[in-house]
């Protein structure tokens, strides 16, 4: 059977079309500002980070020790009120070596690539990972399964933020 007409419109524009004034455009920019309350569970998490400790919550029903800590177990859908400290060590579950900024522009020549990772924290249930950064390691030496430890900001510089841990370094 013959192919029907199935495509119409979607006229490609080039940078030149815009620069030459053939195509008009208008511009605006939105400046959106927000201040988020940290909530019950995360507020405690951040308060403990400020003290140099990582705290988790445990579900009394499924016994998962959860990070980040939460006020309810999303699997069992029950309230959670058991708090416990976990280690500031863990293993690299997965990682990336990132050479671009969010807008796809490349990092500067000589600038170190960003090293995001999912780190399974010791003392939490198996597979409980948090996203953080790696440091004090050459990118080519990073391995999945590698043991790492948190590098904390000096106490006086901590402010109750996930960035109170600067990064995780190989143990």
């Amino acid at each position, binding site marked *: *059977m013959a*192919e*029907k*007409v*199935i*495509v*119409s*419109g*979607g*006229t*490609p*524009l*080039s940078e030149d*079309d815009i620069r030459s004034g053939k*195509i008009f455009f208008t*511009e*605006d*920019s*939105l400046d959106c500002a*927000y201040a*988020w309350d*940290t*909530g019950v569970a*995360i507020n405690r*998490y*951040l308060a403990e980070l400020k003290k140099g400790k990582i705290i988790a919550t445990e579900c009394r029903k499924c016994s998962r020790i*959860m*990070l*980040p800590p939460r006020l309810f177990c*999303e*699997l069992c859908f029950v309230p959670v009120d058991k708090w416990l400290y976990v280690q500031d060590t863990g293993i690299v*579950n*997965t*990682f*990336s*070596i*990132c*050479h*671009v*900024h*969010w*807008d*796809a522009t*490349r990092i500067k020549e000589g600038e170190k690539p*960003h090293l*995001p*990772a*999912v780190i399974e924290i010791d003392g939490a249930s198996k*597979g*409980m*990972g*948090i*996203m*953080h*950064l790696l440091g004090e390691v050459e*990118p080519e030496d990073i391995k*999945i399964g590698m043991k790492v430890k948190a590098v904390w900001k000096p106490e006086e510089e901590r402010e109750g*933020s*996930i*960035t109170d841990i600067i990064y995780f370094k190989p143990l």
Partner: protein
Amino acid sequence: MRKVAIVGAGLTKFVRRALETPKELSFEATSTALDSCGLKLEDIDCVAHGSAPDAFDGIHQKGEYLADGCGGWNKPTMRVFVGGATGVHAIIHGWHHVASGMFDTCLVVCEEKMSSAMPHAQGFFLTIFDAITERALHPNLLWIFALEMNRYMSRYGYTKEDMALAAVNNKRNGQLHPSSQFKDEVTVEDVLNSEIMAYPVSRLDVSPVSDGAAAVVLAAEPVARRLTDKPVWIEGVGWTLDTAYWGTRDLYYPRYLDKAARMAYEMAGIREPAKQINIAEPYDPFDYKALHHMEGLQLSPRGKTVELLRDGHFARDGNLPMCPSGGLLGVGNPIAAAGTMKVAELFWQLRGEAGERQVPGNPRLGVAQAWGDLMQVSSVVVAGI
């Protein structure tokens, strides 16, 4: 529930930056879809449309803005948005309208114009990360894909070359698609030599940003049979959402898709999807995602997907062609529109109307899937003739 068929489909070209506004793009795709089945807007009972976050366009309540271009004037019109899964989810949304008996016909229209956001639409995805525990680390959207890709590859010992094979498969198929924004053939070497963005993701592992729209017409059985002798039936639908704590799941397997796929197959009476499905349109914003999703769709055994790909199993003339449209990698990725394009591809392929792209052997059953948010949502549609 009533039987629902796809009776028409239309697309715009997918381009990096389109002259047309979102509304104009929607109009083009919608009117093409109506023409394709000989209907007028007055024959349409309701509209189900989908498009990405308002922030992309900088237009608040974008669904209301778009409605005119989707034929929504003075009709029951409802927008869905579930991130990247929107394009397939909008079909499910429209299916509900007709299957319920509430309406006999429904236009499903998805549109995306990613080029308006400056300097790059990706910026608006950054707000997907947890505001308190993740955004303070200044994440980049690519991170989650790179983290997932690395986990997937390392779990099975796959290489970057293995992943590049999927990009080449889809991009080759896309060369034949009339909406494709690409002209040049891409080889495995091209993918491997493209600059590294966030290891293991290189530039050609990723689909582009695009502008475009896609539309399909759905009809209840009696209407569908009157309109065409080849209605394409929606035989199964499924969708599920996994937890937003993405760091606490093992990313090597798309659990968010497993249940959605099983739900759709059960409804369609499919017991052995890998044997019964003839064409697959897994969601492929990245090359590894096509393979990852073939596993989640139960179309390939976990960890055996690269082997099957290398054996030609997923080629256009293989046992189970993967992304015969070309997918997001081969046609383009105007997010919501790309998912609907996949369903439109099933429509044309199952009717034998895909021209040069036609999969041989009279395919009878196809599956299309899209995925969105923090490795969370999946929407699946099984279509058959």
